[in-house]
């Protein structure tokens, strides 16, 4: 049992890192959203598995929230936003796919060696979860840094948050209240960003964030 429990948790958490890489690889918005949905599904599966092996029923709630909000509602809403904005073209990237993924590799290597070094005393599963979670967080950040399109930045932000949830479930005994409040704050952030997207587009005719810099006025 123990063996299977560990292996499955390992597979699911590793799968989350893999999904993060798949998001870095995608350069079309719809495909990106699909992968993001997959990311959330893997996350909720991972959380549900943790609920099972830790015998912590409140984690099922977290898994459910992740599944409903992140795998269905948010990707669906973003789909509609993209449709209404009419930007289902390719994602514009600051740097190429290869370079981004190479940088991602470096970040994964960094987080693994860091976490393995820092958490010598923790138990195996938690160490591994933390290493994977930090990777997912950093990859989300990388995604936000390398993309110019506002929608893909939102996706990057959400995937970053997924990493945080993974870290939280790996560490035993996080209260449910915290999880729910995090989930809702993310939702609110999402709504605010969604509103902003339309405002940005109205004003500048684009959701390319480069345009905002041009309008800041402090540059020549």
């Amino acid at each position, binding site marked *: 049992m123990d063996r299977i429990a560990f292996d499955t948790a390992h597979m699911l958490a590793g799968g989350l890192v893999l999904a993060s890489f798949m998001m870095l690889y995608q350069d079309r918005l719809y495909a990106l959203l699909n992968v993001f949905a997959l990311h959330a599904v893997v996350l909720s599966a991972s959380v549900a598995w943790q609920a099972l092996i830790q015998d912590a029923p409140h984690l099922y709630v977290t898994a459910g929230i992740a599944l409903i909000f992140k795998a269905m509602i948010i990707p669906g809403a973003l789909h509609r936003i993209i449709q209404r904005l009419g930007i289902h073209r390719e994602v514009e990237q600051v740097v*190429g796919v*290869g*370079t981004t993924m190479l940088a991602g*590799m470096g970040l994964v*290597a960094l987080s*693994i*060696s860091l976490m*393995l*070094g820092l958490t010598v005393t923790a138990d195996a599963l938690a160490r591994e979860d933390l290493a994977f979670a930090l990777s997912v967080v950093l990859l989300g950040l990388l995604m936000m840094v390398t993309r110019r399109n506002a929608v893909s930045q939102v996706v990057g932000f959400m995937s970053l948050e997924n990493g945080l949830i993974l870290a939280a479930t790996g560490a035993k005994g996080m209260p449910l209240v915290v999880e729910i409040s995090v989930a809702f704050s993310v939702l609110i952030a999402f709504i605010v960003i969604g509103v902003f997207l339309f405002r940005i587009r109205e004003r500048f005719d684009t959701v390319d964030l480069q345009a905002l810099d041009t309008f800041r006025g402090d540059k020549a």
Partner: protein
Amino acid sequence: MPVELAAICSGVLMALAGAAILLRQHPRASVTVYAAATVPCGIATVIGLTGLLGSGVTTTTVLPVGLPWLGAHLRLDALASFFLTIVGLGGAVTSFYAIGYGRHEPEPGRVLPFYPGFLGAMMAVVLADDAFTFLLSWEVMSLLSWGLVLTHHRETETRHAAYVYLVMAAFGTMSLLLAFGLLAGGEGGYAFDAIRAGARSPATVTAILALMVLGAGSKAGLVPLHVWLPLAHPAAPSHVSALMSGVMTKVALYGFIRVVFDLLGPVEWWVSPAVIVLGAATAVLGILNALMESDIKKALAYSTVENIGVIFAALGLALAFRASAMPAAAALAFTAALFHAFNHMAFKSLLFMGAGAVLNATGARDLDALGGLIHRMPVTSFLVLVGVTAISALPPLNGFASEWLIFQSVLKSPELPQVSLQMLIPAAGGLLALAAALAAAAFVRIYGVAFLGRARSDAARQAVEVDRFSLAAMSALAALCVLAGIFPGAVIDAIAPAVSATLDARLPQQSDQPWLTLVPIAESRSTYNGMLVMLFIALSASASAWAVHRFASRRLRRAPAWDCGFPNADPVTQYGAGSFAQPLRRVLGTILLGSREEVVMPPPGELGAARHAVHARDLIWDGIYAPVTRAVGAAANRLNGLQFLTIRRYLGLVMFSLVGLLLVLTIWH
């Protein structure tokens, strides 16, 4: 005693250099000098081989030359024997090649005096057993090779190459000088025995290691110190290029190994990642440049950079394993490095000789002026084909055997205690794999454009096969490539004394294995049998060819090329050097080489020609060398004013510096 014999060989070569000065106007001087140089090189090879295969006894001697209180200490141990073999063998084959090739030299007097001296100096570096002899021979080797680079001094490009080489060689020797100064310490024990016995602080060890990477690395062609190599190696006559790429870089490696593995004593593990990464990066950048280069000799020189990177990466692995007390793994990586060094001597010399043959036959070094030589120069083409297959690390030839060993040592990395090394080494292994794959692409390009297809110029159309001496020399090297590939175990066993002398460990005896299989660690872990692979391929190829011809059809008709129905008689429509490289230039060159394509199309309806241009920037030159050059230039401009001072001011300067020094001395004490 072997060491004295070897010293005599070196001395004879030096004397031959003197004789060549006198002889240089003689019509048969070239043949005489090269033939005479073959003999001591051959003897040196035999001495080296006996040192490795025979007794393995270390012999030393002190000659009463050099510094009066030091003399010239010479020593021939297993490591020196191995490199003496490389120098001797490379020198002998190259000299034999030059008996034929040297006849085409317009001004033999510019090559003959330097050539034997260069060989002799390389032998002296390998034999040296004190810092003074080592540095002196090293510098003589650098200067004489500089003289050889300047052979075709009327070409601007050559003069530029020689200038850059001289500067870099001076820089390298300076680094070595400082390294040996640190090694000798305050007491000034310049004999290697005294250095070996000395104790050093970790900071000193690191500084020495860094200086050695700079000094030996710049001679070997480690990125970013490689800039002179693709300029200088091709500028020299081809047999000298073969020596510089095939042999001199190995002498540089010897210097690195001698100091870092032998004299320096134990080295901390955290220096090894630097060497590994530097090596792997050198490999990829070198071969990528080779892939873009359309001058055949320059492309070969860049490929030398790649191979040096591979060897350095293997040496870095050996350092990492040695620091973590894993002698078997260290021996594996070290054996792989030495094996690859030997292989590189064989195939790179062969390829430079082939390039020389092409140059002789067509007068062209530009790939886009060649083509179809396989019809005109069948023997050369076949021998070069062996060389390109070997250098592309393809089984069953020798290049693959050594790369395979390197990959095997990469796979030993999980046993290291450091997590960062565990992760770094497979990644570096990936880079080495990338370099190997790119090497195959680069050599398909070189061989395909120069030797296959249709001739792109009249010179290539009328090329004739080269002389018998050249062909014999190339055949010998090609045979060496094949033999070392089929019987890698024999080479590994021959290298083993050098490995065990340096690391106190060695690979298991390979000749005990059944079927001459290569088993570096254990049979359940990894095995490779070059002989059987060769045998199986030969058998199944000939069996299938026989069966098809016997039972199916053997008829054959000649017809114009099909080319999807649009054959074009103009040879320019073939894929050339630039077009072959285009996909990889676009994929990797944009980032790593800063290359950029520019297409200018006339607007629709206009009949003007479209233009396509490729711009490439040398990022290393622009990033490192150009600022340094500019700074030196600016400083020189500033200091220029000092040339026009009055006597009184000059005297003042002298006095101020004297007082300044005295002040420093006062404060110091």
